[in-house]
């Protein structure tokens, strides 16, 4: 086994245990590491124009330089909106709309506006449906910090004032918010609201190569869901972030309010039927692929980079999934013992896919991991292989219909999860 050198900005046990099991040697971020698990600040340094340095062929690092195109809430929304418009312009069947002008296949983010930039547009929309609730999220923060719910324009006085003042101060990234239509009919299980956390590994954006981790989980609120306006301030009811739920009285340390995706599937198949459940999971996977394709053009596709994203998805009670956000640094802290085991497996499989086991990393390789190295990951979409299969067809033209029902053994296509 090659004794690689690793650097890590975080001393989380799930990371360090994985490195030690492989017999890797710890070095500092300024030394000649082969594998660097970096946090987002270090990435800025590594790739900065002034003090950055060139990476050699045997170095891999855990973020893409401008991942914010996907992981900042406002940029993600901007990119997805632009992606949809582009598909619409070129007449792609994916961009089909219904009688109300809503996208049929590409409607996967709740309606969102940027504040303060789109304040007036937002007000127009709000006035059309005054009884709806919206959720305000600061762009640069994470873990549920600074989020609040809005159902009256007066709660947004701050932004309306700013947009009317004559001396226009461009908002810093700290002040920008996105405001999205709040999904007030979430699917409830046992009366409680939950959201899904799925892990997606991307090893390349052009061609797109992404992998979905099978052991995702649902995070439950500890308090029963209550859509009444009185409870809008009760963050325990509405936000599923574990860091928030952890502070509630009923937080349980044994299961941490987390349910495996397998249990979710079992419940949905048992109570709602197999077809709708399959359709739900298919749709979620398509949403992930679309979101990645939307930013693929803009992300600098440095071949030293890979990234493990944490996708947050909410399912409404029509069994429609909604993409809420994408996290560049999903938490690696373990809240329960099953959590620790799952995250250990996550890092283990990520490393095996990015660096074929036993070898020294070589960023020039074809980035097609062998099936036995995938571990608990499934190939979500491998654009290169899909192109080979489709004999020169443009993979973007393949609509959702093409990938269904191809579970026969005669076409062992590793290009997608089917």
């Amino acid at each position: 086994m090659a004794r690689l050198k690793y650097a890590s900005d975080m001393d989380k046990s799930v990371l360090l245990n994985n490195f030690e099991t492989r017999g890797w040697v710890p070095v500092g971020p300024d030394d000649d590491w082969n594998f660097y698990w970096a946090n987002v600040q270090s990435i800025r340094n590594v790739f900065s124009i002034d003090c950055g340095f060139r990476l050699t062929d045997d170095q891999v690092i855990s973020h893409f330089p401008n991942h914010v195109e996907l992981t900042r809430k406002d940029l993600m929304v901007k990119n997805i909106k632009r992606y949809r418009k582009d598909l619409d312009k070129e007449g792609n069947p994916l961009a089909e709309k219904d009688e109300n002008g809503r996208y049929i296949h590409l409607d996967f983010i709740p309606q969102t506006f940027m504040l303060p930039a789109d304040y007036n547009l937002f007000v127009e929309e709000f006035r059309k449906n005054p009884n709806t609730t919206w959720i305000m999220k600061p762009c640069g923060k994470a873990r549920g910090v600074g989020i609040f719910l809005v159902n009256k324009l007066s709660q947004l006085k701050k932004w309306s004032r700013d947009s009317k003042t004559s001396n226009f101060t461009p908002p810093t990234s700290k002040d920008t918010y996105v405001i999205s239509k709040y999904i007030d009919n979430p699917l409830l299980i046992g009366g409680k609201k939950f959201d899904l956390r799925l892990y997606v590994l991307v090893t390349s954006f052009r061609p797109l190569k992404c992998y979905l981790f099978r052991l995702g989980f649902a995070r439950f609120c500890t308090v029963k869901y209550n859509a009444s306006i009185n409870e809008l301030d009760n963050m325990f009811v509405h936000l599923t972030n574990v860091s928030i739920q952890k502070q509630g009285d009923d937080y349980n340390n044994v299961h941490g309010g987390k349910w495996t995706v397998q249990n979710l599937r079992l419940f949905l198949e048992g109570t709602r039927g197999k077809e709708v459940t399959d359709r739900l999971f298919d749709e979620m996977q398509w949403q992930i692929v679309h979101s990645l394709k939307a930013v693929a053009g803009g992300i600098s596709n440095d071949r030293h980079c890979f990234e493990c994203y944490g996708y947050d998805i909410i399912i409404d009670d029509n069994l429609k999934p909604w993409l809420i956000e994408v996290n560049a640094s999903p938490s690696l802290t373990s809240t329960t013992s099953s959590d620790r085991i799952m995250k250990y497996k996550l890092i283990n499989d990520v490393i095996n896919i990015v660096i074929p086991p036993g070898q020294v990393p070589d960023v020039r390789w074809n980035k097609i991991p062998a099936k036995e190295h995938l571990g608990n990951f499934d190939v979500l979409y491998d654009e290169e292989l899909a192109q080979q299969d489709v004999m020169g067809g443009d993979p973007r033209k393949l609509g959702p219909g093409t990938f269904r029902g191809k579970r026969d053994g005669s076409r062992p296509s590793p290009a997608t999860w089917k």
Partner: protein
Amino acid sequence: MGDSNYSKAYIQTLIDELKTSKIYTDLQCAAQVEIAKPTLRLSELKKGVLNGLVNSGWDRKLRNAIYRFLQTHPKLQFPSPPPEHLKEPLVFLRKAQQAWEKRILKSLNSMCTDLNIPLARKRPEKEQKEWAQKWTELGIDGPDADFGWEACQGCAYLSQFRPVYAPKDFLEVIIGLQNPNYHGSDTPGFYHLWGIVQVPLKVKDIDELRLQYSDMSINQCQSGIDDAQDIPSELFEQERVKLGKKVINTNHGPLAQEFSKKGCPTSMRATLWCQILAVELDEIDILYYEQLKTNVLQHDLLVDSLLYKDVKLTATNDDQYFVFEDFLYQVLLPFSRDTYVLNHFDYNSASPPKSYIRGRLGMDEFAVNYPPNGVIPFHGFAMYVAPMCFLYKETITLYYVFREMYVRYFFRLHSISSHPQGIVGLSLLFESLLQTHESDLFFHLKSVGCQPLKVAFKWLVRAFSGYLSSDQVLLLWDRVLAYNSLEILAVLAVAIFSFRKTNLMKVQSYNAAEAVLADLTTLQVIPLIQLSLFSK
């Protein structure tokens, strides 16, 4: 009905019972409707009405009603045995069960006196209203909260309660059972059983089990193995689903039961179980459940706190079932008020405990069943309900399915009886299978101080709920329903020991053995059972 399996008296009982049930009046009304149809000719009155009834599905409903009767009423014997014999034919076991019940009741009463809480009390108006509002959220604002429980002096309320008994207490009682007519070990040359159950009951051997479970043999595709994600669906899953849809559409209990022998596809399981258990809800059932709920709101029972404590200790801490906590209360609390459950004591060796109105101790006219359904919960009771929460999202269906499962199967797992599917029979079956087919393992474990039943007992009492992962429990209970027998639990227990034999042979202490068998959540039960039954 010239079926020679059933005596005239049995058939007559069946007819009498049907005549008093709702289906009789419904059929009469339906027949009236048929007669009123203009297409009916007077000359063919009987044939026409019968055809009309068949076409609108009435013969199926009647068949299901009969099927339900057959399942719940064992065949009459002649001369008909006295009622105590229907409960339990062996006197010494009957006495043991009564002694055990006395112990439980004494423990309950002393807990009552120590904590100074009445067995039952009427709730004041205000409290009733609060409970009515919080009915679907009892998990959050339980007795711990300032919720109108006068006795609550703070958050430590629930911690004062102890479960009335746990499976290991029950095991001690079973180990102590001795048939007074039977002397085992003293006679030289006498066959010695290695296990700790010393009651000589007849249990099945492996050949009989193979016959009984022949539909599960290795050459037959099963739901749960052969319809997994990575297997092409044309091999089994598609046909199975097609067949399943046809079975469900005929709405015929025995057919559903036969189909389920190979396991239920996940999306059809809920409906199939309802058909097998003959649970079909109508307005009367809905009203009845509401009535039970009102009973809960009006009166508070000590047993409620026991149930709460149980849920909090078991399901709420379980990472598969914590989500359903509130549903469990909505099922268990009404269950303890449901006097329909008292009927099952006719064939259960247990009897409902009696309590007396204050001040009238010992006077029969003032005796009431306590709790109203006669079932005192023990540690882990809530886990009988938990796996079914994956099937039914309306609590009322969940309630009726659970109730039926309890009065047909689960009650046997915590009462002392000679029935082959009672817990004593299952324990003996487990031990004898293990001794016969894994004798080196059994001997090794015994010699390091670990009796296998001591580890396996808790699995049996809970029907593996909370030990296996949720989908596996459901696959296992499919077979309990389909083959109408709990014996598969003992077979699975033996299979698990066989599976982990290599590690078990290395242990040198009871604790080490328990550690090897502590985590069963990765097991796939159907292949294990198949290996155990069909590959020796």
